[in-house]
């Protein structure tokens, strides 16, 4: 195994491979930083080149795109409250308030650094798990998936803050919206009014851009000042502070990364869930988080970005164990790697182990290089928050339209984005929390589908399976722990008073 590791490392350190890695990183960072353009588009663009490369070079080019996409897509989330891609929505919750407080450099730096560390942890877990990959993936089935998603839905409570009733209703709204379209179990069209664009349902990106970016745009216009009306301070210092923050909260990074890896292992959950899970869990467990999260707490940014990068390492696990791609992006990547003769599956753990190691090395090295690249430009990026709103508003508006359209090339998505922009504005005005709506939208179809599949397989008794019960216990702990904490601190406060 050691010689495979070394062979893998040497393979990607050839100068041509390294060059291609840099090319992939730069292209990916710039493209992915734009809202709506995901890593899939970038990979599709680069695939034709793969025909002329050898195996290490192809890995370097194609997988570098994948390894870095989660780092770069936080940029627009933090600066403009426009989500750059599936895994960066929760970054908005604390990243954007930090930008508004003049701490954009700190937020960006913390985001990039924790992305790097999270990615490395994900790669290490992958490495360690190689011997036990197969039994690990087989352990979880639809019943366990369902209960895991329930844990996520329970986080709706955590994300509702002081307005639990409104939060749950918002979550319910998200769940309902997710049901528009073809019901996968019965083939029935639900709530589609026979309109084609509703047959495919509401897509996450236009809804998120509308719900979060548009109301912020309006806020900027009302305020009349740039994103941040506080002085930016010393940007270099802010950046250094952000990097330090990541290392100060290393246990948080570790916890969030492990959550991310788990989400990655479970095929079908996707990056849109990893960030919310990590965010909700950080909120429940970090001291004082329930008061400060949502107002610009750097821990909110750190937890989310570590998780989304760690998830990538996790999603390689089912891919390597069974040749079953852990996400649709990985399916695209391996479609490209097949061209150079790399087929995922048992060979990757035996004959081609050195290639597997080069992928792991690439994850590590690529993430570090991307973070360094992004950190270099942090100060320049942060300055965008001081620009006049009259300059920012039209540009962000155009970006929002492109982002909503690019996801699936439908003009209706642009209209949906504007509609949710309106809804988001009124939700803010009325004190209705928006994150639970997103969570419902993301988790709804997954929860429903796994539930019915489990019922078909095991009847209602699926609820009594040991895996399900263990996860349910976890859910109870998640929900009860903060209430327990609350009660304890109240008791302690009473004691000190008396």
């Amino acid at each position, binding site marked *: 195994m050691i010689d495979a590791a070394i062979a893998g490392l040497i393979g990607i350190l050839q100068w041509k491979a390294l060059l291609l890695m840099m090319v992939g990183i730069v292209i990916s960072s710039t493209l992915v930083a734009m809202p709506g353009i995901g890593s899939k588009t970038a990979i599709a663009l680069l695939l034709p080149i793969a025909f002329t490369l050898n195996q290490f070079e192809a890995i370097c080019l194609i997988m570098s795109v994948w390894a870095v996409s989660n780092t770069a897509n936080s940029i627009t989330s933090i600066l403009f409250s426009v989500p750059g891609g599936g895994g960066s929505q929760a970054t908005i919750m604390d990243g954007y308030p930090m930008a508004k407080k003049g701490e954009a450099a700190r937020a960006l730096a913390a985001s990039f650094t924790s992305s790097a560390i999270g990615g490395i942890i994900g790669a290490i877990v992958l490495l360690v798990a190689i011997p036990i990959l197969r039994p690990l993936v087989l352990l979880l089935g639809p019943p366990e998936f369902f209960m895991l998603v329930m844990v996520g839905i329970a986080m709706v409570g955590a994300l509702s803050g002081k307005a639990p009733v409104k939060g749950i209703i918002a979550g319910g709204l998200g769940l309902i919206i997710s049901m528009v379209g073809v019901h996968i179990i019965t083939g029935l069209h639900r709530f589609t009014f026979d309109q084609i664009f509703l047959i495919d349902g509401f897509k996450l990106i236009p809804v998120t851009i509308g719900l979060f970016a548009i109301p912020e745009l309006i806020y900027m216009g009302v305020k009349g000042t740039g994103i941040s009306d506080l002085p930016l301070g010393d940007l270099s210092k802010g950046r250094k502070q952000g990097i330090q923050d990541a290392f100060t909260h290393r246990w948080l990074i570790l916890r969030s990364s492990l959550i991310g890896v788990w989400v990655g292992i479970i095929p079908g959950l996707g990056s849109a869930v990893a960030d919310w899970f990590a965010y909700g869990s950080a909120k429940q467990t970090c001291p004082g988080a329930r008061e400060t999260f949502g107002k610009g707490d750097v821990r909110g940014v750190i937890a989310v970005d570590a998780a989304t990068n760690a998830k990538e390492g996790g999603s390689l696990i089912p891919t390597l164990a069974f040749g079953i791609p852990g996400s649709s992006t990985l399916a695209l990547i391996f479609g490209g790697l097949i061209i150079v003769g790399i087929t995922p599956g048992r060979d990757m753990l035996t004959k081609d182990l050195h290639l597997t190691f080069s992928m792991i090395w690439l994850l590590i090295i690529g993430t570090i290089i991307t973070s360094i690249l992004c950190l270099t430009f942090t100060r320049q990026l942060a300055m965008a928050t001081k620009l006049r709103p009259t300059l920012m508003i039209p540009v962000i508006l155009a970006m929002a339209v492109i982002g909503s359209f690019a996801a699936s090339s439908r003009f209706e998505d642009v209209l949906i984005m504007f509609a949710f922009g309106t809804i988001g504005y009124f939700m803010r005005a009325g004190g209705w929390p928006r*994150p639970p709506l997103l969570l419902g939208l993301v988790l709804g179809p997954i929860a429903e589908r796994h539930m019915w599949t489990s019922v078909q397989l095991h009847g209602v008794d699926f609820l009594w399976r040991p895996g399900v019960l263990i996860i349910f216990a976890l859910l109870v702990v998640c929900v009860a722990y903060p209430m327990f904490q609350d009660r304890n601190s109240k008791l302690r406060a009473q004691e000190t008073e008396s």
Partner: protein
Amino acid sequence: MSLRFQPRSLLTVAFILLFSYIVVESSEMPIQAKMYPYTIGIIALLLLAYQLVREILPAAKTETDKTGVDIDFTAEESSKQGKRRALELFAWMYGFALLLWLIGFYTAAPLMVLAYMLRHKETLVVTIALPLGTGIATWYIFGHLLHLPFPPGVLLEWAGLV
């Protein structure tokens, strides 16, 4: 007892109407398609009824608009001037949507930026540079490189220009 009617209750009522529709519509579906929307709808309606009552009754605690977790509405935004500016921005948004539909993205985007510059009386340099930059950047990156198939615009199609 005089009931307290706040504008925000309109949103609550809108949600009630929405969920009522969901419940009615899903009641005719076979069980597998029905269960989730029906159950969620009923629970939501119960909670919404509770919420509406809380908002209307004067005796209840003043409804807080601080969510504690989301980015809150500021005092500035709820002022008259704030609402007026918000209305204007909505007009920009929906006007842009209309323009997109009429003349397609590559023309509408720079035009919108230009119009915004003119409205807010920006300097000449910016008024020329930003729309031009937006137009060139979007055309090059999204049109030429990525071939995003933006619909060309109803008016232009009708005029036979595309």
